[in-house]
């Protein structure tokens, strides 16, 4: 029953996204312009873009892209539609569907961002599959925690500032792990060196999803 609901809700979000292409295109353009701005600011003196800076910059871009992309997941729903959902589906279904949908969106954006970034600014990554795994974990982690934050922020006035203020401290532990793990992948270290980070990230994701699952019904009621 819950499973069916989630499938329907994801399908609805996909159809909506496809019909209003401006949102997706806007995000793609956002990724493109941010990467290009980075290229222009660094491009003239490419020797200062050493590996740690390259890595940190990619993650900061991904962080801002995900905050912007996920912030709209609850703000774009109008009041009438939310009321309609309230009467036909369970809150757990909605939060899980939103998390899965946002993960898909973030994966798409993150991979495009990585490819474009590597294309424009050079690609010093030595262990690409491991790096992609860290991007995958990053996309999942960002979307799980930001989905819940965006549903909290959407209830308040002045929600776009609040979104940033609420999400950054919550996301920092995840970001630190991700930067470390992707740095290991860049340097082509042995994969077992990143095992600690990988397990911690998975554990943090599990905690966040569980807490969201439990707490969302209380938010939903208002």
């Amino acid at each position, binding site marked *: 029953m819950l499973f069916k609901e989630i499938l329907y809700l994801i399908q609805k979000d996909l159809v909506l996204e496809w019909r209003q292409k401006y949102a997706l295109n806007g995000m793609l353009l956002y990724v493109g312009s941010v990467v290009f701005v980075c290229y222009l600011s660094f491009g003239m003196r490419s020797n200062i873009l050493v590996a740690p800076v390259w890595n940190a910059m990619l993650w900061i871009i991904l962080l801002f892209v995900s905050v912007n992309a996920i912030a709209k997941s609850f703000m774009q729903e109008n009041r009438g539609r939310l009321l309609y959902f309230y009467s036909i589906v369970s809150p757990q279904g909605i939060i899980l569907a939103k998390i899965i949908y946002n993960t898909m969106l973030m994966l798409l954006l993150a991979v495009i961002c990585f490819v474009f970034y590597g294309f424009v600014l050079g690609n010093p990554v030595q262990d690409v599959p491991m790096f992609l795994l860290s991007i995958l974990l990053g996309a999942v982690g960002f979307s799980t925690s930001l989905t819940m934050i965006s549903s*909290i922020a959407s*209830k308040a006035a002045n929600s776009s500032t609040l979104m940033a*203020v609420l999400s950054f401290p919550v996301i920092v532990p995840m970001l630190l792990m991700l930067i470390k793990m992707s740095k290991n992948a860049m340097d082509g270290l042995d994969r077992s060196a990143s095992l600690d980070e990988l397990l911690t990230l998975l554990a943090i994701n599990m905690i966040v999803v569980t807490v969201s699952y439990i707490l969302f019904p209380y938010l939903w009621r208002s």
Partner: protein
Amino acid sequence: MKKNWWKILAVVLLVYTVVAGMLTEVPRLAILNETIRNLYFHVPMWFGMILILLVSVIYSIKYLRNPTIKSDVIAHEAAKVGILFGVLGIVTGMEWAKFTWGEYWSNDPKQNGAAIGLLIYFAYLVLRSSFSEQQQRARISAVYNIFAFAALIPLLFILPRLTDSLHPGNGGNPGFNTYDLDSRLRMVFYPAVIGWTLLGIWMVNVKSRLEILRQRLYETV
């Protein structure tokens, strides 16, 4: 009088902490020297902060189960007192770090973790102030409080153990247990933890009673 015994206990313990903490013998260790006395003031702040924030989260959960003004007020006041303890913990830690590590802020994982933890609770206060309607404010900030506490646990307890740190107890540096074998420190440390925590609980108690009275007054006027 019978109900207030713990307040007297708090005062007695704190007087004992200050007097004994400043005057008793402490182990002589290189670099640390007399700054080892900071153990009685800095470390209990973090114990107190965690416990008081835990109180805040418990009252947030209580609020979601059974919405009463009392639970909301206690959760809010406890978060504020927790922040106060956190700030004092950071300040005492920085003061200590200046004498032992040479700098107030040396980009240590523990320092950064503490700063991020405080940011989370400042965000909680900002979130609270952005609602005008009382019930909505109480419910949504309770949700954020629980969510943030769940995010705080890996930050405070898992991440510092994965990285090297200058902080005692990490990266080969002696922790509390190693240089404490003569138990002279323990004699003051445990009372200090209990005393500071009781003081925090007392503050939460007074502040939330005041806040509840204030809200009742506004209702009747």
